[in-house]
């Protein structure tokens, strides 16, 4: 090893593994070269000075930091605080049943919405024909007069059919009520489930 080569690795010699061949080469070199030996001592002394400033005992401080960070997290995001009042552990099967219930309720809601959208469009409009009061004209003496008849609209007769008012929910309205109940049940179940999962 030459002096230049030795100078090049002085700065990284402390990072070399003990088994590295450059260690033994350097040792051989500094045994022969007094300048490099002095330089090597300076490098090692300055490193030991730097290492003297190392600080390790931080256990108490570290625990304090841990508490501070967790307190800050919970203070700024209170919803992340674990629920300490949890009465009992909810088994996985119960949670699964709750999930199925919620899914079923949501399905009822979606089905009812779909029903109203589809059936609401296809129902016939019950609108009365407009009565104009204009009658077709008959010609006296014509050949087909014997079997001629006037179709007088009912409204023109002065007699009005009674109004028919649908009392009570009809079939689609039961669906509406059911869907609202389904959504309500789903929301209540979801809230209860999330409360228990905390």
């Amino acid at each position, binding site marked *: 090893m030459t002096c230049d080569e030795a100078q090049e690795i002085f700065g990284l010699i402390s990072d070399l593994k003990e088994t590295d061949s450059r260690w033994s080469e350097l040792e051989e070199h500094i045994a022969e070269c007094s300048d490099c030996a002095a330089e090597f001592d300076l490098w090692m002394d300055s490193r030991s000075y*730097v290492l003297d400033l190392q600080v390790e005992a931080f256990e108490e401080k570290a625990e304090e930091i841990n508490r501070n960070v*967790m307190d800050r997290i919970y203070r700024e995001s209170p919803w992340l605080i674990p629920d300490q009042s949890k009465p009992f552990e909810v088994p996985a099967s119960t949670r699964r049943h709750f999930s199925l219930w919620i899914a079923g309720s949501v399905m009822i809601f979606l089905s009812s919405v779909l029903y109203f959208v589809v059936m609401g469009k296809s129902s016939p409009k019950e609108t009365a024909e407009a009565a104009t009061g204009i009658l077709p004209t008959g010609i006296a003496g014509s050949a087909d007069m014997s079997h001629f008849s006037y179709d007088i609209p009912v409204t023109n007769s002065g007699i009005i059919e009674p109004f028919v008012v649908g009392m009570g929910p009809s079939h689609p309205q039961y669906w509406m009520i059911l869907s609202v109940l389904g959504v309500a049940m789903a929301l209540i179940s979801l809230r209860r489930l999330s409360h228990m999962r905390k």
Partner: protein
Amino acid sequence: MTDSQMIREIKEGNVELFSELMRRYQRKILAFVYHMLRSSHLELMAEDLCSETFYKAFRSLHSFREVDASFSTWLYTIARNTVLSELRKQKGAHIPLEESGVNPAAPAEIAPEQAILRNEKVELVREAINNLPEKQRSALILREYDQLDYQEIADILGQSVSSVKSLLFRARSSVKVQLEPYFYEYNFEQYEGMKSR
């Protein structure tokens, strides 16, 4: 439980586990922050900045991707950025040594003259490290005090491994050059002391 498993559970809502995850790294990160601040006599802020580092880590945990870096490397990066940001704020506001309150106390059995020499030596090394450019200083602290390998330091500093080697070489060389006068003076005093006996 590995870091990855813990992080996955924390992301799923088990926030309590973050406390456990912190315990794995808090001493290392606190030591790193302390050493980074020490050269600027700002050690008293180490705990606050360490807390800030972990809080930022918790807030950004959703963006952490293990394929990019290990959790440890990611934490060191946050810690370094937090310290640098604080140092920029404090730039120019020099805190005298006596006010920092954490000047290493000399052991009781050391004679007063030796205690003075020791404090002088500590101050010299601090000054030497503080005079280093920021990347050299970070590389030196991460290598000498935190014993990270070249690759980890490279990831934290965003440099290549060869650049890290170069940074370390220049940092150690600079510290040595700054301390040389002290070594000569100290050796001369020792030599004079031996001669007078």
